[in-house]
């Protein structure tokens, strides 16, 4: 059966060199010309190799056919190869000849034999070896080298194709070859693709993480600046009432509640640095500035964080900064902290959700306390009403005997209260006068007016102090920060134009710090900082004349209060112009205007002219 041209490879090892079996397997597998299998015959007494789970169909066919030739032959199909072990006894060459003779045409066969059998196999006419591979280590001893040379010459005498294999195949290649699967020359056909894909995957992931890290790092510095600026503004918000509180008490003693501007700013600065450090910034890289530090009440803070970005070859220092401020909420415009739109334009104090003059509130508190002790609960059904509110009431019930016409109700003065319930009418009739209240009309058992203070809807009533002490009205109600030389002009303007004197004073404080010669880069002039066009509209020929400027200021504020109905909006309109306030009916989002309104409302709260204003902190940039 063995035809001419069949590859018969004899492999032997010299000097105990290892790897002859793998060399044989590689050579046999490499000699397969088309679909088929090779045979590896090992002349050895060693235990035969076991079959592999997966084997080529041709290898299994060889295994079956060899079993027929020799029942004792231990042939096993291993991948694309059939491995045969024929022992190393004296009869091994004869058995080998029988096996080789039985192989189908074209099946390559590698015979791995020890040197003692080598000569006989080489000379066998039945086997007809076509190629010899001698496995010998390059570093063999001199004796072995002589033996190798001898063996090689003998082989070359009989077979022209003789090679010496100086190094054994690698471990993986040997395992694969002996498993009948792969040769060392073409290993890893898919491996480069897989490794390449894996490399791209890992590279992409690393790149994404690096980019994200860089972006996050940059954003982190900005975040630290934001949080520091906000925290600094928060410190200002909390300290603002103390900054704006009078530095001295009425008796001339220092006011322990007052905080100086230096300490106010120092606390804001310390807060900014502390928060920056808590968020991971170095204190040496944090700088804090107050853009409006020259103002009597700074409400803005700017925090800068310097960080160093290392680039290729050189580093670069970048600065992230944020600015925050204390501002008034947008909804602030709707809260009438100071009465307007009626006959009373002074501070408005709320009791049970209804507004009234401060002295009325103080008297009502005393009356409620007494009523409660007598087991009577008093409830206010109505207090201060603007003319607009009165108009709405009258429209709903247009009976002048029941509801006063707009402009005629005493409720517009902040001195009148509608008190209930009916069960309390008896107690009120008997006791209200003890607290300064009288029943206004005999047919209205619920309507009580306060008569112990200034007249309703009088200028004196507008200037009643926050403590409700009528004696503190007029000059006594002006805050301590008002210079003596301007007090008379402020009070005169307040009485003339029915505007709170405290509001006018706070405004002058914020506008010019009571400097009659003040000017601004925008062109505002004088103590009330009139723009020339506005001054002309109000007949103010010399804005640097403080008395006339304060009078015009009262006139302008009176107009703005009537138009916008709230001090916050009137102040915003004074600063930014009515055109900026009208569209949104709110304090416009101009940093300067926001700060201006916040300062004046804070100042009014600080001196107790109005209830403390709700402020909020926000980032400007």
């Amino acid at each position, binding site marked *: 059966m063995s035809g001419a041209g069949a590859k018969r490879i004899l492999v032997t090892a010299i000097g105990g060199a290892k790897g002859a079996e793998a060399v044989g397997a590689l050579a046999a597998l490499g000699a397969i010309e088309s*679909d088929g299998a090779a045979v590896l015959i090992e002349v050895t007494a060693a235990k035969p190799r076991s079959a592999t789970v997966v084997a080529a169909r041709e290898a299994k066919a060889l295994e079956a056919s060899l079993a027929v030739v020799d029942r004792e032959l231990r042939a096993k199909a291993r991948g694309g190869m059939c491995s045969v072990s024929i022992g190393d006894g004296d009869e091994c060459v004869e058995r080998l000849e029988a096996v080789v003779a039985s192989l189908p045409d074209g099946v390559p066969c590698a015979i791995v034999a020890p040197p003692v059998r080598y000569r006989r196999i080489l000379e066998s006419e039945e086997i007809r070896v076509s190629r010899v591979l001698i496995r010998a280590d390059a570093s063999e001893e001199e004796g072995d080298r002589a033996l190798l040379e001898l063996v090689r010459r003998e082989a070359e005498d009989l077979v022209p194709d003789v090679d010496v294999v100086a190094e054994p195949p690698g471990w993986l290649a040997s395992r694969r070859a002996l498993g009948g699967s792969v040769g060392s020359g*073409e290993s890893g056909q898919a491996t480069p693709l897989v490794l390449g894909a894996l490399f791209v995957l890992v590279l992409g992931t690393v790149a994404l993480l690096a980019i994200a890290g860089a972006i996050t790092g940059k954003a982190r510095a900005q975040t630290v600046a934001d949080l520091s600026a906000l925290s600094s503004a928060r410190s200002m918000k909390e300290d603002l009432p103390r900054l704006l509180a009078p530095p001295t008490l009425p008796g001339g003693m220092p006011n322990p509640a007052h905080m100086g501007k230096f300490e106010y700013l120092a606390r804001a600065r310390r807060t900014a640095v502390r928060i920056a450090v808590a968020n991971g910034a170095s204190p040496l890289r944090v700088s804090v500035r107050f853009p409006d530090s020259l103002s009597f009440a700074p409400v803005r803070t700017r925090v800068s964080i310097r960080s160093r970005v290392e680039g290729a070859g050189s580093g670069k220092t970048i600065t992230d900064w944020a600015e925050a401020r204390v501002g008034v909420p947008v909804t602030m415009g709707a809260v009438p902290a100071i009465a307007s739109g009626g006959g009373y334009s002074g501070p408005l104090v709320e009791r049970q959700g209804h507004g009234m003059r401060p002295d009325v509130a103080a008297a009502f508190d005393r009356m409620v306390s007494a009523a409660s002790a007598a087991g009577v609960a008093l409830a206010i059904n109505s207090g201060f009403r603007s003319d607009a509110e009165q108009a709405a009431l009258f429209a709903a019930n247009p009976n002048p005997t029941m509801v006063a016409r707009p402009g005629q109700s005493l409720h517009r003065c902040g001195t009148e209260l509608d008190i209930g319930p009916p069960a309390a009418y008896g107690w009120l009739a008997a006791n209200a006068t003890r607290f300064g209240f009288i029943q206004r009309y005999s047919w209205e058992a619920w309507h009580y007016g306060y008569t112990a203070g200034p007249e309703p809807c009088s200028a004196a009533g507008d200037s009643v102090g926050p403590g409700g002490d009528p004696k503190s009205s007029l000059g006594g109600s002006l805050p301590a920060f008002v210079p003596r030389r301007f007090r008379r002009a402020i009070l005169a303007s307040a009485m003339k134009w029915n505007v709170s004197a405290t509001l006018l004073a706070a405004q002058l404080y914020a506008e010019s710090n009571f400097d009659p010669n003040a000017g601004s880069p925008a062109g505002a002039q004088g103590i009330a900082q009139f723009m020339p066009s506005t001054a002309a509209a109000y007949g103010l020929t010399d804005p640097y004349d403080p008395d006339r400027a304060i009078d015009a200021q009262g006139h302008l504020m009176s107009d703005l209060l009537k138009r916008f109905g709230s001090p916050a909006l009137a102040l915003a309109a004074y600063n930014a112009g009515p055109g900026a306030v009208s569209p949104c009916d709110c304090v416009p989002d101009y940093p300067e205007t926001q700060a201006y309104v916040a300062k004046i409302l804070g100042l009014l709260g600080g001196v107790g002219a109005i209830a403390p204003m709700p402020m909020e902190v926000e980032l400007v940039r």
Partner: protein
Amino acid sequence: MDRVLSVRAESGQASVEAVAGIAVLVLGGLVCFQLLATGYSVTVADGAATAGAVALVRGDSVKAAVKEALPGWANSRVSVRRVGEKVEVSIRPPSPFTWLSERIELTSGASARSK
């Protein structure tokens, strides 16, 4: 070797390697996904902690601000703690390996003045 020994291009050899390679590739992909998910979770936790700190300084609800700053998937994987002036947000990143997801927790913090 004096001469290169060549072996026939083994049919199925590339397939065997490809199958093994794909398994390695899938495993590598999962590891990369885990890395990216972890990195993304760190970014998300940072943003949420910052939002919480801003709420702290403004006197708003910290937990509500943190929840609002988180994407939907993170709502059930987050815990918020306030330690003095610090807001700590801990997130368990998404993971294809359940046992790993339960073991990884990333915490990010941001500080702001609270009072």
